[in-house]
């Protein structure tokens, strides 16, 4: 079974690789298969979770939440159903009622995000940036910390103006501002390069692992 899985996986991988030559049917077929399987799996997982975690317990009186709360969840979910229809239809016309649960979701998500951003991102990042300048880490650490601080500041200054009005614009910025902006842009380019390197590394890793798997399959069939 595992071998079959490796063979199927290897074949599909080759079909996907066929896109290197051109856009072909094999590639599209493999792509559709992958997407379909992924979506099917996701649908199965969602249905399973919703049924098992929410609807099932309510129907079987095994819900950990009160029935009123479960009914509220259910009602909010039902209100979202008209959103799936075209606005020209009746259910689409009454889809405005779905804005209630959507509003709840957006509001709650914003609140959660803001709270998490403040607590988990901004404050720690600011503290980490300030803590980077420590003599205890030696000169190298101090330099690294200085680079981090400078890079953070100049990068933030680069976005200090409204979108579309860069500080590099000579008409609106002084020379100092332009220098800081250019320096911040340099840090951004380096950061994006590092991110691209990481993505490339991940892709190459996946390629190597995938080819490695194919090689193993092939060697297993060839070498026995």
């Amino acid at each position, binding site marked *: 079974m595992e071998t079959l899985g490796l063979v199927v996986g290897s074949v599909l991988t080759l079909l996907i690789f066929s896109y290197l030559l051109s856009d072909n049917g094999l590639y599209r077929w493999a792509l559709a298969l992958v997407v379909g399987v992924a979506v099917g799996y996701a649908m199965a997982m969602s249905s399973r979770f919703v049924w098992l975690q929410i609807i099932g317990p309510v129907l079987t009186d095994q819900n950990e939440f009160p029935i009123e709360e479960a009914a509220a969840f259910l009602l909010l979910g039902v209100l979202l159903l008209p959103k799936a229809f075209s606005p020209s239809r009746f259910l689409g016309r009454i889809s405005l009622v779905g804005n209630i649960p959507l509003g709840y979701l957006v509001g709650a998500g914003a609140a959660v995000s803001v709270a*998490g951003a403040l607590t988990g991102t901004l404050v720690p990042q600011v503290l980490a940036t300030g803590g980077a300048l420590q003599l205890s880490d030696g000169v190298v650490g101090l330099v690294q910390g200085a680079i981090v601080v400078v890079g953070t500041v100049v990068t933030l200054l680069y976005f200090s103006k409204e979108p579309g009005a860069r500080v590099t614009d000579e008409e609106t910025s002084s020379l100092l501002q332009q220098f800081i902006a250019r320096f911040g842009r340099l840090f951004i380019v380096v950061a994006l390069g590092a991110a691209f390197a990481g993505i490339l590394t991940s892709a190459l*890793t996946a390629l190597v692992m995938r080819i490695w798997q194919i090689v193993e399959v092939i060697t297993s069939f060839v070498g026995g």
Partner: protein
Amino acid sequence: MIRCPTCGTLNDESRRTCIKCGNRLPQTKIRCPNCGALNPVGNAFCDKCNTRLLDAEETIPPPASSRDRDEEAPPAVKGISLPTRSASDRDEAPTPSDVPDWLLDLQEEAGGSLSSDEGPAEPSTDEEDYPDWLSELVDEAGSLVDDAAQQPSGADADLETSAGAGASAEDEHVDEFPDFDLGAAIGGDELPDWLDELGTGHERSDAGVQSSPAESPPEGQPEQSQESEASYGASDDWLSEIEFADVGETETPSSADLDLGVGPLAEDEMPDWLRFDDDDEETTEEVPGAHEPAFSEEESRDEASYEGAFSEDAGSMEALPDWLSTLAVASETTPEAGQGELPDWLRTDEEPAEAEPSSPDQGLPDWLLDTGTGAREDEEEGAPPPVPEPEPTQAPEPEIALDFSESELPDWLADAQDLGNLGDLEEASTGEAAGLEEAEVADEDEDRPEDVTSQPEEATPSAAQAGEERPTPAAQPSELTSDELPDWLSEIPEAEASSEYVSPEYVSPEYVSREYVSREGAAFDEDELPDWLRDLGPEEVTEEPAEPETTADELRADSAEAEALPDWLSDLGPAASTPEGESVVSTDEAQAPEEEVPETPDLAPAELPAWLQEVASSEDLPQEISGTPASVGETAAGETETSEEISPAAPSEEPTPSWVEEIDVSASQEEAEQPAGADDEEVLARAELPDWLKALAPSQTRSPEEDEGVRATPEGLVLADIPDWVQALRPEPRAEGEVPQRRGPLTPPEPEGPLEGLPGVLPSMVTVDMPEDAMPTVEREIPHDVVEQAHLWQQLLEQPRGVRRPVTQERAQRVAAAGVIRVIVAAILVLGVAAALVLLPNLASQGLVFDFSQVPSVDVARGVPILVDRVDQLQAGDRVILAFEYGPAYADEMARIAKPVLEHLAERDAEPVIVSTLPGGVGLGASLWAQASDSPAMDTGEYLVGNLNGIAEFMARPDTQASRHVFVFSSSSERTRWWIEQRAVLGQDSTGDRLPISIGASAATGSLITPYLNNRNVEGWIVGFPQALTYRDVRGTLVEGEGLALDVLMLVHWAAAGLITIGFLYYLVAGRKGTR
């Protein structure tokens, strides 16, 4: 003026709703073709935008004033209350040359609607009988009549020339009396708009008059009243308006202005309006508010004296003097001839001694002497310019007697009294005296309120009396009965009551309140006086009009032709045959107007109506009422000679009364303006014709040839001549079939207004069009590429739908090149990896070890030892949360990263809780956990719905908070951040400490989450496959072969780096060109 479409009432242009019915009125404006603004009719340019509304050749000339029209308009045919005679009568009449041409015209025009043979003409309702040329006549005549109404001097002056009118009037037939009831002849509803516009200013009075006749019709003459009412109700208001509007236009009323001499007439010969019975008393009693005493004892005493004088003279009077007839006609209460028919108010016997109207001087009060000057004062107060006097040659026929019966009265006369109700009492200063005098007379007899309406100022212009000398009052006023009263007289009380100027209790006019209120025993009801009578009051008389007088010889000579004249004209000139009608009005006594007037043979009491004698004897009138006698006397004195020249044969045996002198003076003043060499004919014409008639006369005498052109209608009536100015408007004859040439493009139909739906009515605005060959000029030259793009867009837009766009060959070449490059790159990477994976182990087995890479040390992978340490701290059975936030695409890499940790957790017997915000993450995690723990797949994985919210909800669970550690294996920096942030917010364990979190991230995520990893919020992390090997290396579980993968990965990295470098160089050198 705007005619109401509902009721036909004429309204002022400023009104939007009808003053009568209240309905909305249509707009009668010219809409500007440019801005759409409405402009008054006659505007050549728009008031708003100055756009020309009419073509240059169509520009309407400014309306000429009456004076200008008299000067410029050749056929100033005027006259409105002129008689009409049939063609049969014309046979008996003298030749047209005997009659002034203009009078013939008037007569002919009037004859179109009236017939003298039928007696008092029935008011005709045929509007078509009213010719257009009357539009001019109406304006002119109306002004003159109105002028006469406010110039009592004209009536006074008539005394001079109308003395013999009574005698001649006896010979006249009543049927031949002028029955020129123009207003009645023309149906009001059928009147043209321009005529209606003249009469809309008196809608209220009109309404009042229309309603009143039905309330008090004169008994005995129901038909007449009905006729009068009908004619009056025929909305001939324009006539009444004319009458009053033109009051001030006549500058100097001539002696013939109000010369309506009415000789002693038989009862059957008298027009209806002269036939008054004693029943008037009864009738007038029915008039509401007609018996309110408003005068003092003094007034009543004076009035009694007047009445007594008249009553004595009434028995001997055979005919009314002209000037009295003028008064009577003016007031539209025509006294019948015959003494016995005098109304009671004329027969008053009270104080006969004081009333000895042997001469006009005695009988007339001062105000009558001053009335002649009143009009001038009105003119000075802003009255319209006077109508110039006609040329002397225009009035060759002196013997013209106009008489009007009730039914024959034109409506404008009937309306005049009602209009007077609306007139301003103060402004009509000159009329107040006359009205007051009438009021006094009427005050003597409370039962005759309508009689009071007879006023000399309103005197209908009569033709020149044919008196030989100074007119002798031969006419005898007849009794006026209420039954015989015209409707408009019977309507006076109602009209007065309805007038806004008179309250039901009656508010006395100023002059009345000022002069007469204190009198005792005043029986006169002021309500009976219309305003227009009050306007004739004597006050504010400042000037004496100079009137030309007619000599007796001239009059006598002309009297021979009286029979040849039309009857209605001869009625006005009986003085020539009246033996006692000779009187000379001397101005010597004008200086003493208040003296006892001695009797004069010229003005015998018998010839004077009682009421006039009473008037003449009003010596007690205050000075204010009589105007300015001193000045008048002075003026009159200076004019004495002139008047005597005019009337040399006047046997003034008795001293002329002062009032007569004053009249004479008023007449002579105007005469003084005439050239000394004026021939007798001119003088006669001037003496015989009233001003208003003169004004109506054409400026040029029509030649006999023109007279011959007068044609008779089938009914025997004579057609009128079309004035020249009307002829000038006649369209030019065109040949048959000729299409009239248009001056401009046909404008669209008017959207609204009276011209609605009519195209081409208004000239279109001159438009300036662009030449056909004009091309727009572009300052800047359009770039070539823009033009090409525009053409391309044009081609694309012009292509039919469904046409496949051809793919250019160049793009196909590019695709092939890119594919080749892509294949090359793929081949390098794939083949390189495969080769490495195949060859490197074989080479290693052969002793050729190529160590392309090394497992990163803990110095590089700083989070690995921390993670190992945290996992080692876990106890068996500790609940750990395993979050797998990656999909199948990153499963190979993430599996290599997560598997060392899972294996370690499995070794630690940790109780995992597999969760994921991705549907596939749960399965991947469960599968990986099964591989790592060498156990069946977990069935406890949980899909966290809602991404961030799901994480937050999960972290808030008590079970989660009871967990010992959170391990997040993520290929997404965002999802990693979610877990870190929510753990910072909600991740607290049972001890209150934050739930520790460790991160296993892909190489792509590692660089993005490094700040979180280095801020010590994360306890251990693994970034990328190399650090996973480090984790194994730290733990000492590194397996052989995994190093091979790392070497291959390093080779691939170098290969990728080489390809990137080549591509960079390629694009650096040639790529930019290829991109272009």
